[in-house]
């Protein structure tokens, strides 16, 4: 791994660098021992317990809400409904949803009332005693719903994004080969181990909320807005939190907590159940994506044509930004002279979809990578070769937008690193070992994912540093820690920037009172953005230390005492993520609407597996995960992110599908919403590709999302290589695989059952000629 040393002289020869070393996470011992107090573990004397009454209908007018019985239960302190919320809106417009539904509910599980009571059982019982009268409305069960209603008065289109470079239609018609792949991907559940909740206290006109958050700044705003408070009177303590993966981006739990504490003026504890979390919480946007690729005979990509329809559920939170990411990544890591994206985010009465690791990338990458793999088969080319030949090179223009891509992109090295692994090289021998119904296959796929919020957004992270007289360096920085131990990496960066021992450094994250606003733990930005802010604030102190006479060679204790005494112990810095150098075809005034990235992380993955052709079962035998993360500040943590990402990718590929029937959830527990177990995740070999991002701290960039993306298409490609059946619908359940295999071999699939198989249903849904998701006409 290359490493850039910081400028200036090295002040402490005794200090050996810690960047590039796998320090254990700061909280590791406490987490493993069960000693860490998570936000939902917080308890104080005299606290009340909250519960939520939720909608039983996917779409209905609320005609009455009767809270009398609930309110008269002994121990109940407050029952709150829509009228009790000072400003009953969760965001800037009504399509972001209400805090508590008053007139209309648009999904099962939508919050209608909150209860505070002396104990959790009473709160739950009282919440169940609330009687809501509904007048059901027709249900919009997806973008193709024929229901003669709209979810919102403005219609069912929450957003669209179209962009074209070159002339895709002409390029496709003159291509030697056009592969046309029409895919669907499912609504995936985050399954963070800790379900949402925490505590809130109202004290002297200020509200403090302890609740997991990936975006404390946004949550403060949501709370202040709903309670009509001054932003300065809202404090959010957002960790330790037991996982996030996107689900804590705009989770309403902090607002519920604040509302309950504000009304009762007592501390209130609330902890949602798994079932509530599954039914009411956000999902990965389910997509239908159709990709057409045009190639010439030699395998050169001429055109990429991508159309995507995302189901955002009843309220648009992250939906439009998710579509934006899909657009940018619809061409993946590939260079094509002609590219088009045409995308729609649609409202429905299905689960609300929001942010999820990968953020619009996995859905379009599944279609794109499947198309590339199939093109390789059609053209008789090696899957690695066809990819390598068409990669965007560092410093090249992006296929769709034409903006310049950072020189740190190591797409070709990442692909080569994956392909150099014996699991890829020995794929023929692996296939030759197939026995009986178990056919062996190997697949490869790759992806890139932008780091940060994108150009034109003013994406910024900040850090504050105070040297104590006792020789400790305290740093307050963001983005927040949501399970990835980012604080440990910040310490490593600080230690090497300052040239002092990392034990002297304390990093504090996640408290809005103390940490300067640094944006979300999202978009693979924490290391790059927060790490850079830490690097800069330490750089300020370092510049002072380097002044003659400050660092006298004495111990750092003495130096620190001198800094404090001379009033030079406090520093602040901010890092504004650089925009792309050249915005290409994007009109300057619309830069933020497309928000292209300069910096991308990259991953290429190889999957070896077996498919049982008689039953459709898939057994994974290994995943190689090559990652281009620039410099890995903490390789152990980077590998941890990669392995977790692959496991989540395995879930997306094979198991996970949140299902509803006419808007009514059917997979409401972890008994029927399956995620991979330790038995289902195969050995994972992570290869860290050597690279260096010049604008990142010590050469680092983000990688935590991109590792989720190639897994599903690599598994699909391996199934294709094993059986000749190329899955188009996720998850690849045994039933879908078997239906695909039997359709391929011309066996009848439905003569014995009145019902069509899942794959057949999915096939019928896929109507390529009717991709537009126009708003349903009619009543609203």
């Amino acid at each position: 791994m290359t490493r850039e040393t910081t400028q200036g002289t090295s002040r402490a020869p005794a200090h050996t660098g810690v960047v590039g070393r796998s320090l254990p996470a700061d909280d590791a011992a406490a987490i493993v021992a069960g000693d860490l107090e998570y936000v939902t573990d917080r308890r104080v004397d005299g606290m009340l317990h909250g519960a939520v009454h939720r909608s039983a209908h996917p779409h209905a007018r609320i005609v009455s809400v009767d809270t009398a019985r609930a309110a008269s239960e002994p121990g109940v302190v407050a029952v709150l409904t829509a009228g009790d919320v000072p400003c009953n809106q969760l965001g800037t417009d009504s399509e972001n949803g209400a805090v508590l539904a008053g007139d209309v509910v648009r999904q099962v599980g939508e919050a209608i009332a909150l209860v505070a009571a002396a104990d959790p059982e009473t709160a739950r019982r009282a919440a169940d005693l609330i009687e809501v009268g509904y007048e059901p409305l027709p249900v919009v069960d997806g973008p193709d719903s024929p229901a003669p209603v709209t979810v919102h008065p403005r219609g069912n289109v929450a957003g669209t994004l179209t962009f074209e470079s070159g002339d895709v239609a002409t390029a496709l018609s003159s291509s030697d080969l056009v592969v046309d792949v029409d895919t669907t991907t499912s609504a995936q559940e985050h399954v963070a181990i800790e379900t949402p909740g925490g505590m809130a206290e109202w004290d002297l006109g200020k509200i403090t909320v302890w609740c997991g958050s990936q975006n404390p700044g946004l949550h403060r705003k949501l709370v202040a807005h709903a309670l009509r408070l001054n932003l300065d009177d809202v404090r959010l303590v957002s960790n330790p939190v037991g996982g996030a993966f996107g689900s804590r981006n705009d989770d309403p739990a902090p607002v519920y907590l604040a509302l309950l504490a504000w009304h009762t003026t007592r501390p209130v504890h609330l902890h949602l159940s798994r079932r509530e979390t599954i039914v009411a919480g956000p999902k990965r946007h389910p997509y239908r994506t159709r990709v057409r690729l045009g190639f010439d005979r030699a395998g050169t990509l001429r055109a990429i044509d991508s159309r995507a329809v995302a189901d955002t559920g009843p309220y648009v939170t992250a939906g439009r930004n998710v579509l934006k990411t899909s657009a940018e990544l619809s061409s993946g890591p590939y260079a094509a002279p002609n590219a088009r994206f045409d995308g729609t985010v649609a409202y429905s009465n299905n689960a609300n979809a929001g942010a999820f690791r990968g953020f619009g990338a996995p859905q379009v990458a599944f279609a794109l990578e499947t198309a590339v793999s199939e093109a390789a088969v059609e053209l008789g080319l090696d899957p690695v070769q066809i990819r390598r030949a068409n990669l965007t090179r560092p410093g090249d223009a992006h296929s769709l937008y034409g903006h310049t891509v950072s020189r740190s992109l190591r797409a070709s090295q990442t692909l080569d690193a994956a392909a150099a692994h014996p699991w890829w090289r020995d794929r023929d021998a692996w296939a030759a070992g197939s026995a009986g119904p178990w056919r062996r296959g190997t697949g490869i796929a790759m992806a890139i994912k932008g780091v940060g919020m994108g150009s034109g957004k003013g994406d910024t992270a900040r850090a504050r540093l105070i040297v104590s007289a006792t020789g400790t360096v305290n740093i307050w920085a963001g983005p927040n820690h949501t399970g990835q131990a980012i604080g440990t990496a910040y310490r490593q960066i600080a230690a090497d920037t300052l040239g002092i021992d990392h034990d002297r450094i304390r990093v504090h994250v996640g408290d809005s009172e103390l940490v300067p606003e640094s944006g979300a733990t999202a978009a693979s930005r924490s290391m790059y953005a927060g790490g850079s802010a830490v690097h800069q604030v330490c750089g300020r102190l370092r510049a002072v230390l380097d002044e003659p006479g400050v660092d006298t060679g004495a111990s750092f204790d003495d130096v620190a005492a001198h800094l404090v005494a001379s009033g030079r112990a406090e520093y602040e810095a901010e890092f504004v993520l650089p925009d792309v150098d050249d915005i290409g075809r994007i009109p300057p005034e619309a830069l933020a609407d497309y928000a292209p990235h300069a910096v991308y992380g990259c991953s290429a993955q190889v999957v070896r597996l077996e498919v049982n052709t008689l039953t459709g079962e898939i057994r994974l035998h290994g995943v190689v995960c090559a990652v281009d993360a620039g410099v890995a500040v903490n390789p152990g943590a980077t590998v941890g992110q990669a392995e977790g990402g692959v496991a989540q990718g395995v879930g997306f590929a094979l198991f996970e599908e949140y299902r509803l029937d006419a808007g009514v959830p059917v997979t409401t527990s972890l008994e029927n919403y399956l995620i991979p177990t330790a038995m289902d995740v195969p050995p994972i070999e992570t290869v860290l590709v050597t690279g260096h991002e010049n604008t990142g701290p010590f050469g680092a960039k983000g990688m935590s999302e991109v590792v989720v993306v190639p897994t599903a298409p690599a598994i699909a490609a391996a199934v294709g290589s094993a059986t000749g059946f190329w899955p188009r619908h996720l998850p690849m359940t045994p039933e879908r695989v078997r239906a695909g295999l039997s359709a391929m071999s011309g066996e009848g699939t439905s003569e014995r059952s009145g019902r069509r198989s899942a794959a057949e249903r999915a096939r019928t849904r896929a109507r390529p000629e009717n991709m537009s998701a126009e708003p349903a006409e009619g009543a609203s």
Partner: protein
Amino acid sequence: MTGRALARADTPAAADALCARGRPLAGATDLLVHGLDGVRGELVDLTAIHDPRPPVERLADGRVRVSATAPISAIARSPEPVPVALTDAIAQFASPQIRNRATLGGNIANGSPAADLVPPLVVTDAVLGVRGADGRRSVPVGEMLAGPGRTTLRPGEWIEYADLAPVPHSGFRKLGYRRALAVAVVSLAWSWSPGSPRSGTEPGGAVALHDVRLAAGAVAPTVVRCPRAEAALNTLDATCVDTAATAVHDDIAPIDDLRASAWYRADALAGLVRELAPAATRQLREGDTAQP
């Protein structure tokens, strides 16, 4: 669960008396999951019965008696062997933690058509030792199963053990949607004997089978035998297996549910029947080397 009485039965006789007015409880891996709302009376803890006998015993007539109240992991670990179908099923059951609690009695009494331990009992002609304050009776396992969530246990009765007939070759295969902690979408237990006294191999190389029994899970209201498929499986040649895989459709009555369609259940079961050919051939080969 507040105020729920749990009575510990320390002898089988005490259990008889307690079960007359309470509900048996063993590993509680079903009962607590389903909830105690509809459960009347006190809970009778059968796991407290002090039983000096091992969980598996060989009877004088060659059958094995398997405890219905011991954790199934103890059955799998037992020095006295049980038919392979049962150890296979235990190995594919839930997770180690659940296997350390779950019991055979609970699996049967729960009445699930997807219960993993029931198909092995069916193919080994298991006879259940059932008892209560009114006395004891022996019930063939097939007569115990009445429908989804239903058995023919009478009020106050509990299952003490199951007696399994010896079978030369048996096995179990579960198709779940993941490798652990998953309810069976389809399962199949089988047992058979070699058709010819020497090696079971007919002159043409095809393997002759005798006394084939197949029991399938999650494809009918209860675990069912598959007589049509069994009848077709006289030898292990391709034609025979094809015929059996087709015939098995008429032995079952699968439904569409959350996990799978009826089409897939039938199709996958036919797949498991086809898989029997290599499995049986392998067992035969291994069996041959084991017997001089």
